[in-house]
C-alpha cells in the first residue's frame, strides 16, 4: 500500500506528518510505502528513512489547484498512490476541492466537505457553538485597529489573539495585543481572532469520525509541558466521561469524517469550553496508538472500505515526552531534494 502524507515539519511547531507515519508504520508494517509531500527542503521528515520511503516537494496552497494537481499527477505516475492524508489546515481547502479528481486517479481520502471545514473555522466557531449547542468563548474578528479596540473593550484583559490558521498569544496589554495582531496578520492574513480568555485546565481530544455521525476513536490528553508556542511537549492520556461525550456530540452533530482535534478548556466549575476545532490529526496523534487506539491506522482501514467498530477502552496514564533529535543528512541528499524536489530515502546514508 502506498500512502502519501503531508505535515512533515517536525519542528517546534510541528505538523502531524511524522507522528502519522510512525503510527501507520507500526500498524501496517513494511508492506506500507510512505510518500512524504513536503513544502520545504528542510522539513525534518524528508530525512527520516525509518519512517519515510520517498519525499516530494509540492507547491504551497497559495499556488492554487492547477499546480497541485499537476504535481500530484507527476508523483502518482511514479508512486501509484492509494491514499492521501493531508495534515495541514491550510492545505485542506485545495485537497477537498480535488478529491473527486483524486478518486478518478485511484487516490482515496476521507476529508470533510468545504461546509464542514468552514463551520468549525476559528472565524465561525462562535456561530458553530450556537448552532450545535457547544460552549465557545466569546470572540471578535479583527480586521482593523478599531476592531481590536472594540474587542479589548468587550473582552477585557487578558484576551487571546489568534492567527487565522495557527498560533495564539495571551495578551495582557493593548501593546502586546497590537503586536500580536500585526504579527498574525502578516503571517496568516486577516481576520485575526480575539478570543475571551478562559482560565482553567487545557485538555486536547484527538478523535476520528466515520462521516456518518459515529466516533470511531476518542483519546483525551492533558498537556503536561507546554512550549512557548503553546504546543504540548509532554502529555498524558486522561479519563473523563464528559470529555468523551463532548467529542461524541461533536461527531454526531457534524458527521465529521476523518481525524480531528478538539482543544478544550475546563474551568474551575468543570465547564468545558471548546477553544478550537482542528480539522485533522494533532501532532501528538502517535499517543493514540500508544493508548491502544491507532487513529491513523483506523482511518486507513476506513478509507480502504473495512467495516470499523468504534474502539472501546484506552490506556489512561499513557504519556508522551517529545524530544529534539539531530538527524544527520548528507549534503547530496539535501541538494537532491532542493534542486529536483524529490528524494528517495533508500539513498539516504546517515
Amino acid at each position, binding site marked *: 500500500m502506498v500512502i502519501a502524507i503531508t505535515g512533515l515539519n517536525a519542528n517546534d511547531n510541528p505538523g502531524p506528518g511524522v507522528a502519522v507515519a510512525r503510527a501507520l508504520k507500526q500498524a501496517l508494517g513494511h508492506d506500507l510505502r510512505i510518500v512524504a509531500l513536503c513544502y520545504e527542503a528542510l522539513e525534518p521528515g524528508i530525512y527520516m528513512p525509518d519512517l519515510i520511503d520517498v519525499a516530494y516537494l509540492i507547491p504551497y496552497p497559495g499556488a492554487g489547484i492547477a499546480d497541485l494537481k499537476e504535481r500530484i499527477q507527476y508523483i502518482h505516475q511514479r508512486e501509484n498512490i492509494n491514499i492521501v492524508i493531508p495534515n495541514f489546515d491550510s492545505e485542506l481547502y485545495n485537497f477537498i476541492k480535488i478529491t473527486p479528481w483524486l478518486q478518478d486517479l485511484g487516490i482515496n481520502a476521507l476529508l470533510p466537505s468545504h461546509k464542514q471545514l468552514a463551520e468549525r473555522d476559528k472565524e465561525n466557531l462562535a456561530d458553530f457553538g450556537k448552532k450545535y449547542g457547544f460552549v465557545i468563548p466569546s470572540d471578535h474578528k479583527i480586521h482593523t485597529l478599531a476592531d481590536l479596540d472594540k474587542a479589548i473593550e468587550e473582552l477585557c484583559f487578558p484576551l487571546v489573539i489568534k492567527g487565522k490558521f495557527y498560533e495564539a498569544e495571551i495578551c495582557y496589554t493593548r501593546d502586546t495585543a497590537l503586536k500580536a495582531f500585526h504579527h498574525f496578520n502578516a503571517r496568516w492574513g486577516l481576520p485575526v481572532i480575539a478570543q475571551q480568555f478562559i482560565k482553567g*485546565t487545557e485538555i486536547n481530544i484527538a478523535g476520528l469520525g466515520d462521516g456518518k455521525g459515529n466516533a470511531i476513536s476518542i483519546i483525551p490528553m*492533558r498537556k*503536561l509541558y507546554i512550549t512557548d508556542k503553546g504546543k504540548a511537549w509532554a*502529555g498524558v492520556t*486522561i*479519563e*473523563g466521561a464528559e470529555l468523551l461525550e463532548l467529542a461524541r456530540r461533536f461527531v454526531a452533530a457534524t458527521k465529521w469524517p476523518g481525524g480531528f482535534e478538539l482543544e478544550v478548556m475546563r474551568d474551575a466549575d468543570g465547564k468545558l469550553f471548546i477553544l478550537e476545532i482542528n480539522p485533522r490529526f494533532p501532532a501528538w496523534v502517535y499517543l493514540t496508538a500508544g493508548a491502544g487506539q491507532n487513529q491513523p491506522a483506523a482511518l486507513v482501514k476506513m478509507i480502504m472500505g473495512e467495516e470499523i467498530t468504534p474502539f472501546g477502552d484506552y490506556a489512561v*496514564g499513557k504519556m508522551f515526552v517529545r524530544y529534539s533529535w539531530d538527524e544527520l543528512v548528507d549534503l547530496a541528499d539535501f541538494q537532491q531534494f532542493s534542486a529536483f524536489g524529490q528524494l528517495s530515502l533508500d539513498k539516504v546514508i546517515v
Partner: protein
Amino acid sequence: MIFGLDHKMNIKKNIAMSENGFIFNPATGDSFSANRMASFILAALRSGKSEAEIKTDIIENYEVNPEQVNRDWDDYVIQLRAANLLEA
C-alpha cells in the same frame, strides 16, 4: 477524645497510588510525589480508616504531640483538596 470531631474523608476512587508515593489523578492528568508520611495517611484513608484512627496511629508510632498532629493534618487536608484528590 483527643481530636474532637472525627471527619470522614474519602480519597477519590479513581486516584492511582503506588507504594513509593507516586499519585496520579486520571481525571486531570495531575501527578504528585508524596513523602513517607503523606503516603501512609493516603493509604490509611483509602483503607477506610477514620481521621481519629489515623491520628492515633501517628501519635503511637512517632514522637509528636496531638496539637502538632492536628495542625499538620489541617494543612495536609487543604493540600489534598487543592490537589483535587478528595471526594467532594
